């Protein structure tokens, strides 16, 4: 017979998490949904969505968000994967690399954006370095409103620098969960390093890759602070438009509509990842 305490203990332990999620995620999410379908006067309507679609910035924001997602997520996953495999190969001094890679984790996204602004701005580190090296005569306006490629590159670099370490940590944890025997068996049965990675390590890393992708994609849809710091409103993104509609235009309903679009995109992406990368039932050890 299990005692009462034992039966309730799991629920008690889950309670703080559930409370936290309800308070900070579930309630705001429901509120946003309600806001987005509520007319400014009263009653339900799709007016807010119509205003959002008609907004001059909407299609740009939509395009830019997807563009950033497509550029940043694969880049981060590949970078983090290479770094994780490198660290996991336990060469001399691999610990130092982990510390260096992990530094950006401690920096807030707005701070990271400002930091990279100092690099890319007209009189920033990049221009002065290039000028001193004699590569350019005049400062290049990397972040000028008509230099879309420049802005995009700066954002991709800054975001990658800032958040790759998060992916790295997830992948390293995943790699360390793979029993050493699997690496050795691959080695012994004739796989070189590359083939071992492709045929054994990556497939076994799928659960971690999936978590990393989901987390990174959620954050990519929410990319905002770094974009704002580097490009201001020259580079509208969905999350940024939500903020602008709320803070500047003072229309919480259209802001909520943007939030709902971000939510929808996120859900679709997660479903795709779960489908493509999820473990087949047959592979799961019971």
């Amino acid at each position, binding site marked *: 017979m299990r005692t009462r305490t034992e039966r309730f203990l799991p629920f008690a332990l889950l309670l703080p998490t559930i409370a936290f999620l309800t308070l900070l995620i579930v309630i705001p999410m429901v509120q946003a949904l309600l806001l987005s379908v509520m007319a400014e006067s009263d009653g339900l309507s799709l007016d807010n969505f119509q205003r959002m679609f008609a907004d001059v910035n909407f299609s740009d924001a939509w395009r830019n968000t997807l563009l950033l997602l497509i550029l940043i997520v694969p880049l981060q996953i590949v970078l983090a994967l290479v770094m994780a495999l490198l660290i996991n190969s336990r060469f001399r001094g691999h610990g130092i690399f982990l510390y260096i890679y992990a530094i950006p984790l401690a920096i807030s996204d707005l701070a990271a954006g400002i930091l990279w602004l100092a690099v890319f701005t007209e009189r920033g580190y990049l221009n002065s370095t290039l000028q001193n090296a004699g590569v350019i005569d005049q400062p290049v306006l990397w972040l000028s409103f008509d230099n879309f490629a420049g802005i995009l590159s700066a954002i991709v670099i800054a975001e990658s620098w800032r958040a790759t370490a998060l992916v790295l940590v997830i992948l390293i944890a995943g790699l360390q969960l793979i029993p050493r025997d*699997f690496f*050795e068996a691959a*080695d*012994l*049965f*004739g796989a070189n390093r590359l083939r071992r990675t492709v045929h054994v390590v990556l497939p076994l890393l*799928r659960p971690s890759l999936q978590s990393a992708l989901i987390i990174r994609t959620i954050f990519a849809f929410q990319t905002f602070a770094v974009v704002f710091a580097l490009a201001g409103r020259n580079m509208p993104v969905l999350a940024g438009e939500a903020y602008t509609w709320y803070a500047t235009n003072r229309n919480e309903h259209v802001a909520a509509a943007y939030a709902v679009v971000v939510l929808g995109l996120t859900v679709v992406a997660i479903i795709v990842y779960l489908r493509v990368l999820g473990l087949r039932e047959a*592979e799961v050890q019971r």
Partner: protein
Amino acid sequence: MSSIAIDAVSKIFGKTPALKDIALDIRDGEFMVLLGPSGCGKTTLLRCVAGLEQVNSGRIRIGERDVTDLAPRDRNIAMVFQSYAVFPHMTVGSNIGFGLRMKRRPKPEIERRVREGAELLGLVPFLDRYPAQLSGGQRQRVAVARALVMDAPVLLMDEPLSNLDALLRLQARADLKRLHKEVKRTTIYVTHDQVEAMSMGDRIAVMREGAIEQLGAPMEIYDNPATQFVGGFIGSPPMNFLRGAIRDGSFTGDGFAVPITRMRGDLQGREMVLGVRAEHITIADDGIPARVMVVEPLGSHALVTVLVGKTAVKVQAPIDVAVRPDQAINLHFDEATLRWMDAGTGSAIQR
């Protein structure tokens, strides 16, 4: 030719010496068992042969080739891991064919050999299943099949049966022995189970604390243990030991005297250990006095534990033996079967 020559191999982990100057020659096609208690260095020696561990000194040759500095994949060996290391994301068929795919063999050849391997180990019905859908015994057979289809002349196995339950282990033991007869690979088989070693090995290398204590055919080791350690490790029950010295025609110790008729003169008075196996002791009407402690009927025979002087001794008796605990009885030792060891070093002494 795929003999294996292990020549003066040492391996040190930090400050712990795991292998101390090991020399071992394994013949082509031989089934060599590395036997010893946990932590004696069996796995380390096997991993050194596989190339998964670098030796600190010494050389390892496979056939004519010095493989000491080669990577595992260049040594032309196959291995069955103690954990099996069967890849969970591949079907049984893909697992069996893994090594062949890595060696880029042509597809039809891979298919044919996977099928052969699966047939050899009774895995044909499971070829499309994933390891998680198999029992422990089936997974173990996948690991063996994966190693066998490689056609590597050398097969290494690290306690491949230790994760199976007792009944399955018995079956798998016989299967592995039959397989070895069929495929005749030079095999190194690691185990801490002396019954497994006895039943499977062409020869056994008994290891202790990083060194080989005795090397020989199973019965040779059973009958003539080179040391007290080997006698105590091989056999179930282990060999009985009595400590004493020869004085006036009998081996006398704490509370007992065993009459001895033949003995080298120079051994008179020397502190020695007498080793005797349970099946070489009989309960008799007169002889060495003993007191019964426990009687264990084991079906085919009974195992009787008695006190000789102050030493516990196990005796193999007929199943219908009529003795009870606390009863005073007499024992007869078959003198020709007695083994002698030095009391200090534990090494065997010829009489």
